């Protein structure tokens, strides 16, 4: 019961959004509300806001009109798998880099004061600005491919929550525990492995979840900025521009992106389950 609760609530939330969408379509004027030339409420015509049923029906139909074209859901699924793969790579890079930064900052106070502002500033650089830089650098490396640029750019978003969460977690052990290990005359490495890392898990799991969300968003946006074909990012742009007569089509890749988000969140939740022995303090305090 307690386990099913969040799932039920989540499903209710999704249904509610769908209901609001249809409700707005039903009551708002098709041309929207424009006051003094400014659109206050969006248009609710079928072109701007297709029915939810239409969106799902569209998933079953072929991508293009010509025979032999695969159904939309299959194309979306393939694109989503492609994007998920890149997002996974960027998540791993982000987690590794974030952990290393956190360990460095925890180990050396000077490193913390030197690095922390840059870590925070780094997140104010927009991906759009980053994309040409990364692909420019990458093109000088033999064998470099565009998907790698996308992974690197997305990991740039993913490392941030990990480094912040891990730093808090690594610094979380009580003085008494640190002194206990000191009394055992063990060094920094063993203290890290036996005390700091296990103690950081309750802080790390939410950070990993945030990193997964950032990795997915980063991958989709970077696919667009780099112009990488094959993922849902590019697919959204393509369908949106080419399908003014097919308004339900762009929602295919949007659903794809949502599915990626759900799957990645599920994977992190599974990871949290494996680490539950280190999360006992979450349950008790």
């Amino acid at each position: 019961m307690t386990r099913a609760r969040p799932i039920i609530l989540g499903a209710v939330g999704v249904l509610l959004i769908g209901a609001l969408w249809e409700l707005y379509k039903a009551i708002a004027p098709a041309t929207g509300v424009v006051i003094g030339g400014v659109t206050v409420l969006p248009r609710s015509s079928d072109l701007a806001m297709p029915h939810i049923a239409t969106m799902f029906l569209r998933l079953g139909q072929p991508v293009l009109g010509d025979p032999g074209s695969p159904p939309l859901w299959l194309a979306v699924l393939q694109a989503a798998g492609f994007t998920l793969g890149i997002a996974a790579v960027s998540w791993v890079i982000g987690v590794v880099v974030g952990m290393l930064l956190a360990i460095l900052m925890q180990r050396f106070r000077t490193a913390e004061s030197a690095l922390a502002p840059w870590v925070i500033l780094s997140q104010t650089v927009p991906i759009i600005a980053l994309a040409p830089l990364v692909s420019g650098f990458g093109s000088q490396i033999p064998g470099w491919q565009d998907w790698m640029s996308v992974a690197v750019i997305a990991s740039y978003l993913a490392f941030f929550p990990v480094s912040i969460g891990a730093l808090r977690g690594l610094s979380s052990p009580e003085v008494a525990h640190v002194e206990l290990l000191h009394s055992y005359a063990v060094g920094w490495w063993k203290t890290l492995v036996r005390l700091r890392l296990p103690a950081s898990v309750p802080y790390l799991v939410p950070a990993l979840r945030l990193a997964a969300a950032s990795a997915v968003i980063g991958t989709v946006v970077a696919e667009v900025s780099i112009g990488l074909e094959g993922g849902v990012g590019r697919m959204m742009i393509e369908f949106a521009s080419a399908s003014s007569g097919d308004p339900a089509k762009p929602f295919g890749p949007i659903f794809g992106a949502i599915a990626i988000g759900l799957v990645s969140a599920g994977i992190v939740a599974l990871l949290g389950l494996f680490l539950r022995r280190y999360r006992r303090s979450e349950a008790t305090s």
Partner: protein
Amino acid sequence: MTDAVTVSAVGKTFAVANRGTVVALEDINLVVAPGEFVSLIGPSGCGKSTLLRLIADLDQPSTGTLSVFGKTARQARTDQDYGIAFQQAGLLAWRTVAENVELPLQLHRVAKPTRRARVAELLELVGLTDFADRYPDQLSGGMQQRVAIARSLAESPGLLLMDEPFGALDEMTRERMQNELVRIRHETGAAVVFVTHSIPEAVFLSDRVVVMSPRPGRIVDVVSVELGGERGDEVREASAFFARVSAVREALHGAPAKGVRGVENR
């Protein structure tokens, strides 16, 4: 035989931000023989914990010298000559009872079968064999404290340092733990430096009770207890016991302290 602990003319001064300095200890001289049980008692802030921490090399003295089994405190810590238990059990929440007791052995690369056997032995000693696979949050405070004591005994140290290990326990558990400590100490033959706020506890456990006074922290008296080796609950009713309790109490009150707050007379 070298003494377990030798403290000569030790002083400790802390620098406090914006407040100058605090003299926590001044001219402390103390010798603890091998196998001897010595309690430190005195009002809050008289430097008991500080003295224990100096012996444990968790802090360094400002003046004077300190040796543990004839070595520097640092060397003794590196050689793992002592086991330590604090007021808070300080167990690692993600480790089971057995794994917590195992921690020092694991950190010092003791072979796994040896480790297992030793942990079983220690859990038997503190009566927690049935709880080996529980996690600390599933134990009562008294049980956690026993795990911490088992852990401090893991490497059979010649010296045990204990800072109010029973401070957070109820009176009944506390007396039972005291009985156990007397027994454990006789089985292991370790010297003990024991910090407490309770006069009866100090008298019941110790060969000698060191009475301290604050500001600056000094030793004002040392009361020899001489109630015999293996003590049981009957000692708590003996007149010799009460005589010693009174002696310690007088030493405490006679101390030129501005009050003896923080000392329980129970």
